[in-house]
């Protein structure tokens, strides 16, 4: 394996186009274990962290821009970002230990294409966009369009994500992410649930987004639950409908972390709880903060 660290997006895409067996990486926290588990070694390792845009976190009047290879520790350490997107910050902060947090990235977590990726439901409910670079320029994808199955993405071999764009959190809106694991830290989600709501002036829910991880081949949105929430104040009957819709939408696997029945039930419980946290945060974000 030969290592290269291009310093520009153009240099990286031309390296990828010229080398069919190339592997891009950011923190390598998934790539190294996969290579050690016997995945064929690429000819070329392309380290994206020397490209300035890929390791940056900035905001303007309309949006946040997060470099795809930016360590997730930068997100959780940034008070302004974590205040505006507490759910996304918490989801990013759940990926592994401090050692991993200093290397893991949103781009890596997404493109590794694990169904259990913690940051992905939180990105999906926040409508995050991925700016994808390739040999003929850049294109913009909704994050929900990137992963197509376990280990599979819609990106071509010579494409990679440069950065993520996240529109500013509107007033009276909030997000949340909850994860169930059998221990307190350092495990892979049995179920992950991301929620975001926007409240109307009368306190009812104007917009709702709910996404689940680890219960289907990709992260899934739950439109039936979202529809059930809109126009309500999330009373008990509505929350029961949310839980039922979440459980119903699951198509999980049985494995050592949880059975199909267990995952379905936990999906409903986490969906309800995530929605309630998002509502509480939305109530606190009244437009003056």
């Amino acid at each position, binding site marked *: 394996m030969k290592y290269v*660290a291009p310093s520009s997006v153009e240099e990286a895409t031309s390296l990828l186009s010229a080398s069919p067996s190339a592997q891009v990486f950011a923190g*390598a926290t998934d790539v190294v274990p996969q290579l050690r588990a016997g995945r064929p070694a690429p000819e070329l390792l392309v380290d994206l962290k020397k490209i300035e845009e890929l390791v940056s976190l900035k905001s303007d009047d309309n949006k946040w821009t997060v470099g795809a290879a930016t360590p997730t520790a930068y997100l959780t350490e940034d008070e302004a970002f974590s205040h505006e997107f507490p759910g996304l910050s918490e989801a990013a902060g759940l990926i592994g*230990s401090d050692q*991993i947090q200093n290397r893991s990235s949103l781009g890596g977590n997404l493109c590794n294409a694990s169904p259990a990726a913690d940051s992905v439901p939180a990105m999906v409910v926040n409508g995050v966009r991925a700016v994808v670079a390739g040999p003929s320029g850049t294109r913009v994808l909704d994050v929900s369009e990137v992963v197509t199955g376990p280990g599979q993405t819609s990106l071509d071999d010579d494409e990679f994500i440069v950065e993520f764009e996240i529109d500013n959190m509107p007033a009276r809106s909030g997000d949340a992410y909850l994860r169930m694991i059998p221990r307190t830290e350092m495990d892979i989600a049995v179920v992950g649930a991301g929620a975001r709501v926007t409240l109307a002036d009368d306190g009812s829910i104007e917009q709702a987004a709910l996404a689940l991880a680890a219960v289907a081949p990709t992260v899934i949105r739950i439109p039936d639950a979202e529809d059930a929430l809109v126009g309500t104040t999330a009373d008990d009957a509505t929350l029961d409908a949310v839980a039922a819709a979440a459980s119903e939408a699951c198509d999980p696997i049985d494995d050592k972390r949880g059975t199909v029945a267990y995952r379905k039930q936990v999906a409903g419980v986490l969906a309800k709880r995530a929605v309630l946290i998002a509502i509480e945060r939305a109530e606190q974000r009244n437009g003056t903060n």
Partner: protein
Amino acid sequence: MPRTHITTVINGDETEFLTEDGTSLLNALRDEVGLTGAKEGCGTGDCGACSILVDDRVTCSCLMFAPEADGTTILTVEGLADSGDLHPLQQCFLEGAALQCGICTPGFLMAAKALLDKNPDPTETEIRYALAGNLCRCTGYDKIIRAVQEAALEMRGK
């Protein structure tokens, strides 16, 4: 296989070494630089025995390719003591018997140092979370947590 020339600062000294590109930083530190403090437990970022500080951030050296170290500043457990005087963390691990076989100790020391550098007065819960990426099969962790608390106390007193 051609070897790549890497220039770093390790434990305060400018250090150059040659490495194959696919070699982990951990193996380069151990086999090329001769610093065998960092250990390989799992090789996949789960156990933390290979923890070092790279540009002041704790990381698993087994998950880094050696060429990534070019231009960085690295601290390994060998750089923790100050001219023969043990670091308070090392002294407290020793006095509190916070180790038995010792394989995990260099990683725990570096993770604990990273914690105390940014949070000189952590709660027990904060210490436990900060050390969640380090596994120990001997101690049951309690003596490790107490040693870190003791070292934090001592370091704040200075």
